[in-house]
């Protein structure tokens, strides 16, 4: 045990380092280089303090949640891992313990399941699925084999953990303020690994916009009168880091028609020489063909643009007309008196190191012939300089042609991939909307889960995943019921964490779930089976991912549906939501979630009937099974209040049970009782339980506070969920570490 303690303290030390590094981030860690290059950590603000002042309470919470969620995720993971590490030794020392301890919690729950009616069984089922948690469990299994294996396993785990943490610690984050069309603004945290697509998804969630492909994030530079839309695949942090400390640059979130216009009307770009009428009458089939020819081959084709543009002479105020040509390799011009054959062309600029910007009002500023100008410059150049190239077109259409052509040449396949992703996103969003409008009963739950899983797969850490789930849920949320869906997925994972132990013993983790509850599982599988088909329709890609990434996800929906019918749909929903958010990122957290599932489990019977109906009506509805429940509660007004209660409940629970997290959920949900038991037992038994507790409290606390603001609803719950991990009941992030320690100690003491 000493070893373990030593290890634990070591790990804590590392975590301290981590937290420090996170804390420091507000002050540019890299004060390197010349002053101008210093990184401004709060783009959109003149200084950091201002940025902090500007943050609304909500925003602050969000930011904290963002910050802490990462920490929590890693810490929880660590905690779980540590617990796991502990387990092996104990098992080796006393053979029976390993088996007994893990099973104990599970055994309880499973027993309940068997004894209780089908609903209970569902719960058990839910618990088992969490695949993500399985990994930690392995150690116990190996314990029996041999000490060396155990050690090897421990070492491997430690290495993995350490690597993860190192990665996490290095991540740079920025607080950014995004201006929205209506004059308001949103403040959000962006980390280095997020690309613009992620941030857009995040904003979709925050702003309830329609998610169409035109939504774009763009920067404006008032010093130079420039404006540039970020491409979806770009990392946001990098260009923002290039802004100067006193930069007046702004970040905007708005619809820009030109963002993907080339994919909607490729003929306007690739056949621009043809007359307007033929272009207008272009058949869709021919448009598709154009896209295929130019973007789907082995090489991306750039529209062959050529024309006279005005070039601003270096340092002078005069503009000179030249014949410019666009090629994949750059912009060229034909020198006076020479032909425009390739060999005579002079290279004007290549695109490796420059970006293309729209320039505004250069007519007055630099006496440009027209106001339709674009600029090519290195992204880090922020002031007027001889290294900025100014070009001026005759009309807005030519300007669009050139800017788009340059983007195609510069970004190539990534440009088209971005568009495809954006379209996918839109269809998801609209699909939800349709579903909701068409049948209130339908629940979006299935869809969200796929999307979530998808993200998970693609993104390494909780960071990315969080924002993404958010958007999806948001879309739905705007319409009404959507929120519920997201929650369901999370619970399964969480619950899954507990159950895993038993499966482990049996042999392979995945199989266990079915084994444990043969009777119960059937319902979920059936449901899931029916659901899957619909998702494919909406998103062919989505359905498969969920199962792969989180086996747990599919099950959740069923559970939810079941739970909803019973009663308290709103409450049930709300709690799960936060829980799911919080938990999702940190695989290990699951413990809080489990409780909800149990509740769900009771109702299961009712849901099934609705599903079939939905299915027959429309595939999309399928997924919704949960929605029915949600839809009922979904009515926007109702929700907010609903939300409030859960948190409180959780709080109470927390007070009752010393371990904050587990109790809250349990009290709220009637069925939970069994789960709580299992949880507590699990906590006593080993690692898994402890981690969960922390997460639950925070959500409850934050949500409780926020109950009031209806519009923010969605965001708030999300925040709460995230904050949950870090904030703790008090919402004081600073205490998080100590809280965690307390919880851990308690756990240990119980043992």
């Amino acid at each position, binding site marked *: 045990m000493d070893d373990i303690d030593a290890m634990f303290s070591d790990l804590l030390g590392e975590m301290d380092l981590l937290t420090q590094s996170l804390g420091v981030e507000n002050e540019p860690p890299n004060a390197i*280089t010349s002053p101008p290059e210093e990184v401004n950590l709060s783009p959109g603000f003149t200084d950091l303090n201002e940025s902090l002042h500007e943050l609304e309470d909500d925003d602050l919470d969000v930011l904290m949640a963002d910050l802490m969620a990462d920490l929590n995720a890693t810490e929880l993971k660590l905690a779980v891992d540590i617990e796991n590490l502990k387990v092996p030794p104990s098992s080796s020392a006393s053979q029976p313990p390993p088996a007994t301890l893990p099973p104990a919690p599970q055994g309880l729950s499973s027993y309940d399941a068997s004894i209780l009616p089908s609903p209970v069984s569902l719960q058990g089922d839910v618990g088992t699925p969490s695949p993500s948690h399985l990994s930690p469990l392995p150690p116990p299994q190996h314990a029996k084999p041999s000490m060396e294996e155990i050690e090897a396993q421990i070492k491997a785990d430690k290495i993995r953990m350490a690597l993860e943490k190192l990665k996490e610690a290095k991540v740079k984050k920025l607080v950014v303020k995004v201006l929205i069309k209506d004059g308001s603004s949103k403040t959000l945290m962006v980390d280095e690994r997020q690309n613009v697509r992620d941030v857009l998804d995040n904003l979709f969630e925050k702003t309830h916009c329609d998610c169409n492909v035109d939504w774009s994030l763009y920067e404006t530079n008032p010093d130079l009168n420039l404006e540039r839309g970020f491409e979806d695949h770009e990392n946001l942090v990098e260009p923002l880091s290039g802004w100067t400390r006193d930069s007046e640059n702004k970040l905007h979130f708005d619809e820009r028609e030109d963002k993907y216009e080339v994919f909607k009307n490729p003929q306007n770009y690739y056949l621009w020489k043809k007359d307007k009428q033929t272009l207008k009458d272009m058949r869709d089939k021919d448009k598709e063909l154009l896209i295929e020819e130019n973007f789907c081959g082995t090489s991306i084709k750039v529209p*062959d643009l050529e024309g006279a543009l005005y070039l601003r002479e270096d340092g002078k105020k005069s503009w000179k007309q030249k014949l410019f040509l666009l090629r*994949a390799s750059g912009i060229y011009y034909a020198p006076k008196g020479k032909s425009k054959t390739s060999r005579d062309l002079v290279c004007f600029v290549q695109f490796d190191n420059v970006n293309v910007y729209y320039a505004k009002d250069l007519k007055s500023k630099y006496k440009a012939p027209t106001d339709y100008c674009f600029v090519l410059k290195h992204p880090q150049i922020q002031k007027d*300089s001889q290294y900025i190239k100014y070009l001026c077109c005759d009309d807005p259409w030519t300007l669009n042609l050139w800017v788009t052509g340059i983007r195609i040449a510069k970004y190539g396949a990534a440009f088209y991939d971005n568009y495809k992703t954006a379209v996918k996103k839109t269809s998801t969003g609209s699909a939800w909307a349709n579903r909701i409008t068409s049948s209130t009963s339908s629940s979006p739950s299935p869809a969200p889960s796929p999307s979530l899983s998808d993200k998970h797969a693609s993104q390494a850490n909780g960071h990315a995943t969080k924002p993404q789930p958010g958007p999806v849920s948001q879309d739905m949320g705007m319409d009404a019921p959507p929120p519920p869906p997201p929650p369901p997925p999370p619970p399964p994972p969480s619950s899954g964490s507990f159950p895993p132990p038993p499966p482990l013993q049996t042999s392979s983790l995945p199989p266990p779930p079915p084994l444990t509850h043969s009777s119960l599982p059937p319902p979920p599988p059936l449901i899931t089976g029916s659901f899957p088909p619909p998702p494919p329709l909406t998103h062919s890609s989505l359905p498969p991912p969920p199962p792969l990434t989180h086996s747990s996800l599919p099950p959740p929906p069923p559970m939810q549906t079941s739970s909803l019918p019973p009663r308290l749909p709103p409450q049930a929903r709300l709690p799960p939501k936060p829980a799911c958010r919080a938990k999702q990122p940190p695989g290990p957290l699951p413990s809080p979630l489990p409780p909800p599932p149990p509740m769900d489990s009771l109702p299961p019977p009712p849901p099934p009937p609705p599903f079939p109906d939905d299915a027959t009506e429309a595939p999309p509805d399928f997924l919704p099974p949960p929605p029915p429940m949600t839809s009922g509660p979904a009515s926007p007004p109702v929700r907010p209040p609903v939300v409030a209660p859960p948190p409180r409940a959780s709080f109470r629970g927390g007070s009752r049970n010393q371990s904050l997290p587990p109790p809250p959920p349990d009290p709220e949900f009637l069925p939970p009782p069994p789960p709580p038991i299992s949880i507590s037992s699990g906590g006593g038994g080993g690692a898994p339980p402890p981690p969960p507790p922390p997460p639950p409290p925070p959500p409850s606390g934050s949500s409780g506070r926020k109950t009031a603001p209806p519009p923010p609803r969605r965001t708030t719950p999300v925040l709460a969920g995230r904050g949950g991990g870090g904030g703790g009941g008090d919402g004081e992030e600073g205490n998080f570490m100590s809280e965690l320690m307390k919880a851990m100690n308690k756990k240990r003491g119980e043992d």
Partner: protein
Amino acid sequence: MADWDLSVTVEELGSEAPALSISVTSDLHIGGVILKLVEKTQIQRDWSDHALWWEQKQQWLLRTSWTLEKCEIHADASLVFMPQHKPLRLGLPNGATVRLRACFSGPVFRTLLGICRILNIRHPEELSLLRPLEEKKKKKERDALDEVYDLTEVPLASVSQACLYNGMPAHFADSPQTEAVYRMLSVPQPAPAPELISKQYRAASVVDKAHINSRWLDSSRSLLQQGVQENDRLWLRFKYSTFYNLEPLYDVVRLAQLYEQARWAVLLEDVDCTEEEMMLFGALQYHISKRSLSEPQTVTSNAAMDDLETALLSLEVKMDGDSNTANDMLDNMAAPELSDYLKIFRPKRLTLKGYKQYWFKFQDTGISYFKSKEESVGEPIQQIHLKGCEVAPDVNVAGQKFVIRLLIPAPEGMTEFYLRCENEEQYAHWMAACRLASTGRSLADSSFQSEIQSIRSFLAMQKTHGNSSVPAADDAINPHSLVSPRYQKKYKAKQLTQRILEAYQNVAQLSWNDALLRFLQIWQALPDFGLSYVVVRFKGSRKDEVLGIAPNRLIRIDLGVGDVVRTWRYNNMRQWNVNWDIRQVAIEFDGNVNIAFSCVTADCKIVHEFIGGYIFMSTRTKEQGDALNQELFHKLTGGHEAL
């Protein structure tokens, strides 16, 4: 029925031997004739590949069940009995000549399928055979010079679906000779000597290019029908510029040959490109040939994987120790250090100050410099962040000048620095570090060493060609081998090295395969890529014009000015017809647009095949996989033979 004598020449008896005369009746079928013939020769051998060729009519008698009467063969016919598969010398895109057995009796398209199967090239429909340019003088000399790779011994029956053996299709693994052939096929050739490039025929104008297209063989008739004899020389080339589903894993030979064809198209200015593009092509060629020497066809290991492994390794080592604090681990993963005395020069307006010496230290992706080594503990005089900067060499080996030019982006614009190194070694290290840093990678990156290596070899390239009397080292490449004659004349080797080196920055990190694909992509992105020209006379027009045939459209080019006059896209095409009697092609497009033209430089069958071929290429889909719809191809390209 009356017997009559039919005279048949049997090739096996030798060209001097008199024709055999056999007695036949008109209702005897071809199979019977062959049987009689074989009996009469009294030669014991496998005759299964033999068939009768009717010389006067220039046609094969392949339907053995047809009677002589049905074939309209009478006593005056002179037939030849010969094998259908004969050796053919094939000039490959890479310039090598391979000798293999090809089918002389089937349509060229089918012959081509066989050839590509032997050579292991997928999607043979994209290739075709054409007659080589006549080389007027010293033809025999050339023949002697050309190394011929012999594949005639490869049993055709053994050529099956590519099952790999020793990393190559089984039929190449039979003997060391065939293995060598496979290596020739699958690895790009070393850069050709500059003289070789300048000596080769270059199409100077669009009309010249149009003439090349008159050489394509008719894919619906057999080789023998088109006058190709045993051991004749033909070229194998990619004809249709739509390369379907290039897959480095399966297309080793196809990619290598495509690259060769592209390289020669660039070197011979077959396709126009700008100077910058030429330098990039040069850099890629350099990179590819370097990589083919060092790591032929091996997939370069994944850099990210390397990183992870080294990180894991160092972590593990640490874990074995007692103290495993995060600090230790971080220390352990720190990048290698690079520091030295260098001279720096910062050009500013109105300053004439020269280089000043400081102690330089490379850290992460930046450089800091100090007054001296002793003071390097304190605050640096300046730190320069290199991420996103432009790095350019300014090197003259003979003059012992090793300068790194740095263009550092800053909010106010770009700041210029010159770093002067003392010697090659120092330069190679610092240059490599700067290059990595400009792309955001630190010295810890696994590619650091290879980067240093490639810079050294570039310096070597400059050295060996500073004075041409020194024999080039084995792996040295003459920069003049990498560009077309136009630039050979325009630039001296030194200048050229400089230019290519600049372009090389952006591609140095590519793996062999990626470099190859990049070359092909840039080639395909050229505006004139994929255009096959034919001089035509449009109906109602009095002058010759040029028709450009592209994968997706036809363009009409004014011969005088060289401007594109009109463009018609295939997807607007309603139908096209060829009037074989007056040799005119007529095409109808949507909206009642009709064009008709006769072909001046090429047979209208060739134009017909191009159009039909491209339409066929566009019908290929992922679902059908590699299966080739031969019938459709024949329908679209066959012309009247297809009917």
